[in-house]
């Protein structure tokens, strides 16, 4: 029960007025960016990174935790009320949630979503408290070859298994790797791709990359979409705030099922919570189809409860994987990893020994943040929706100002401002032509790690490549990876066949209908 004692110390750190203030600010900011479509907690943390540099690390990280979970609480609000999910993680919950809103049950949908997010997050946090230290002990068995295997796993899983177009996912990964090799090589001291510019010797700062890709890229793509079809209507939130006993009976098992689906996905690097939310949605829909009168399509409460719980459960265990293994499994986790490095901390097995006060305060802040967010979201969800009335041009102008301010504040280099603009344009092109951003971020974060571990392994073995697959852990990781890729390929081929068959027999389809 050592974990509980440590967690108690963590609570003692968090429950001071100043740290509670950071939790509250983080929760407010996170919910706000979650509500606003196109903005996510990854971007919010990227924008906050430079301006929080003068805070102490504990204050900064518990604020980031608030932002992270706040984003997941908030993104369903605009989905339910406006049919515009605030984030890709809210798409699955929006399908039934918006139908509930159109049939006058918006308040129940919002409550279901907030409670679901709370349950998923709390259960995942409890698991992290008890199992992250075990996971960290396991990670001490990892050598260079194992870490390389982990990085390769993350690269391939995030770009090939999850994204719609494998070529586009891998292309984004390759661009990210290319950016990550700029700078002085840490092992040999050779200057690589710096063109002799001293400002580039340290490589391109992660703040520059994330702010450019996520914030400025979004601003440019909003500018390019100006005037195109965008008919969204904000429904008023009507109905009861509390759930009837019947609704609770429907929602409660869905919350738990969603949580169970979401938890394992935090540890697998598949790019965040999109996959588990859709899995939870699919599960609820299949279960519902067995009823005498299926409710899906008419605003089924389970269709909101399952995905929302799954999304937050994934985010919770993803934090565990980040802390214990140093492995980011989503874009947001990748940015948090960058944040740790800004403060000179390296997540992974040693973090629990080197900075126990920070780790346990962070874990305690998950629980505090979750309660704060439930309070902020349950009664006030309709109030948050008012944010959507802020004119879009002012909103994005403000984001641009903060993006440039943050980048300049970290380094005081004009070159960084030029770089952030160029990366912002790349971010715009990626959005326009359907390249996912997450593989690029993971590549930039894990690329240097993959290279260092690769070279270390080869040094140890004196250039014998068989060391890369010499241990049980590496073989297992690569085997699971091959299976996952084969499974994804098989599913895609089957889906394509089905589409071809449907297209070939339109007449028969019509007869059936």
């Amino acid at each position, binding site marked *: 029960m050592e974990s509980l004692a440590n967690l108690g110390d963590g609570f003692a750190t968090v429950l001071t007025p100043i740290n509670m203030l950071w939790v509250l600010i983080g929760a407010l900011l996170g919910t706000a960016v979650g509500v606003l479509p196109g903005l996510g907690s990854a971007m919010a943390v990227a924008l906050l990174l430079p301006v929080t540099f003068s805070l102490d690390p504990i204050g900064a990280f518990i604020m980031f935790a608030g932002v992270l979970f706040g984003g997941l609480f908030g993104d369903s609000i605009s989905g339910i009320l406006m049919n515009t999910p605030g984030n890709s993680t809210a798409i699955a919950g929006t399908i039934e949630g918006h139908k509930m809103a159109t049939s006058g049950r918006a308040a129940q949908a919002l409550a279901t979503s907030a409670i679901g997010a709370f349950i998923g997050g709390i259960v995942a946090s409890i698991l992290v408290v008890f199992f992250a230290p075990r996971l960290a002990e396991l990670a001490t068995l990892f050598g260079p070859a194992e870490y390389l295997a982990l990085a390769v796993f993350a690269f391939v899983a995030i770009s090939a298994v999850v994204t719609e177009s494998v070529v586009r996912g*891998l292309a984004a990964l390759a661009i990210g790797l290319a950016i990550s090799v700029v700078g002085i090589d840490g092992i040999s001291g050779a200057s690589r791709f710096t063109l002799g510019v001293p400002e580039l010797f340290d490589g391109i700062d992660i703040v520059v990359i994330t702010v450019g890709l996520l914030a400025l890229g979004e601003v440019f793509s909003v500018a*390019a979409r100006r005037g195109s079809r965008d008919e969204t209507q904000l429904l008023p939130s009507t109905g009861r705030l509390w759930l009837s006993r019947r609704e609770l009976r429907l929602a409660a098992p869905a919350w738990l099922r969603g949580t169970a689906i979401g938890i394992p996905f935090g540890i697998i690097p598949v790019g965040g919570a999109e996959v588990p939310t859709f899995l939870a949605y699919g599960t609820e829909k299949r279960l519902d189809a067995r009823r005498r009168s299926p409710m899906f399509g008419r605003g089924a409460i389970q269709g909101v409860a399952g995905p929302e719980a799954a999304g937050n459960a994934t985010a919770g265990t993803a934090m565990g994987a980040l802390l214990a293994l140093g492995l980011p499994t989503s874009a947001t986790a990748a940015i948090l990893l960058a944040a740790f490095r800004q403060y000179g901390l390296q997540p992974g097995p040693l973090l629990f020994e080197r900075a126990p006060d920070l780790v346990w305060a962070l874990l305690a802040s998950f629980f505090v943040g979750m309660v704060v967010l439930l309070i902020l979201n349950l009664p006030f969800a309709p109030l948050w929706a008012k944010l959507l009335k802020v004119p879009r*041009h002012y909103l994005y*102008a403000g984001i641009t100002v903060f993006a440039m301010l943050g980048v300049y504040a970290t380094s005081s280099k004009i070159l960084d401002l030029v770089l952030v603009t160029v990366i912002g344009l790349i971010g715009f092109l*990626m959005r326009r032509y359907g390249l996912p951003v997450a593989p690029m971020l993971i590549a930039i974060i894990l690329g240097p790690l993959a290279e260092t571990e690769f*070279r270390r392994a080869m040094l140890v073995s004196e250039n014998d490549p068989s060391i890369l697959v010499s241990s049980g852990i590496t073989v297992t990781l690569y085997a699971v990876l091959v299976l996952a890729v084969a499974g994804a390929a098989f599913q895609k081929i089957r889906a394509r066949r089905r589409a071809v068959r449907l297209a070939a027999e339109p007449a028969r389809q019509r007869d059936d209908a």
Partner: protein
Amino acid sequence: MSGVIRTVSVTRRAVVVADGFWRRRTGLIVPALMLVIGIGLVVGTVTMDVPANTASPGPQVFPAIVAALVIVLAVLLAIDVLRKPEADVVEVAQPAAPGQPDDDLVLDDEGEPQPLRPTSNHRALLGALLTVVVFIAALTPLGWLLSGALLFWGVARALGSRRPLFDILLSLAISSIVQLAFSAGLGLNLPPGVLGGIL
């Protein structure tokens, strides 16, 4: 609150078929860019100054792998874009008469929804980009207060704000608040510029 609140104005629009070979394949710009990056990596790797007595594998191995990856994927992506072009139908927004709100007429789709090729508003995009470039150039000589206000004003205008005078006040207010909060409050170092003596 009564019924429904419309949050975003909708412009009068028509559907136009614009079927040019290149128009439907503007996505080729991404593989082209990747090819440039890949060639840059190859040149940089070959011409790299490697310190003597560097242990193998040296600093060139990983960049070489990345360069190969970038170039191969550029080719694969180009093939994908060439084989699967975007839809040939675009929607064209027809600007409303000046001074008239443009949200009064919405054309409804009839029948099946068509897949539409997304179009880019190049003027707005260029406006935003130009504002950012001007901001970067002006930051050191003019200082944060003025250039930050310019940045806010320009981006808001590019994104469709129609109140330039009000925006000037708003943007000056925002950049002043930022200067106060982050420079005086958090101790960030923002360039004072021409207003350095006054502030």
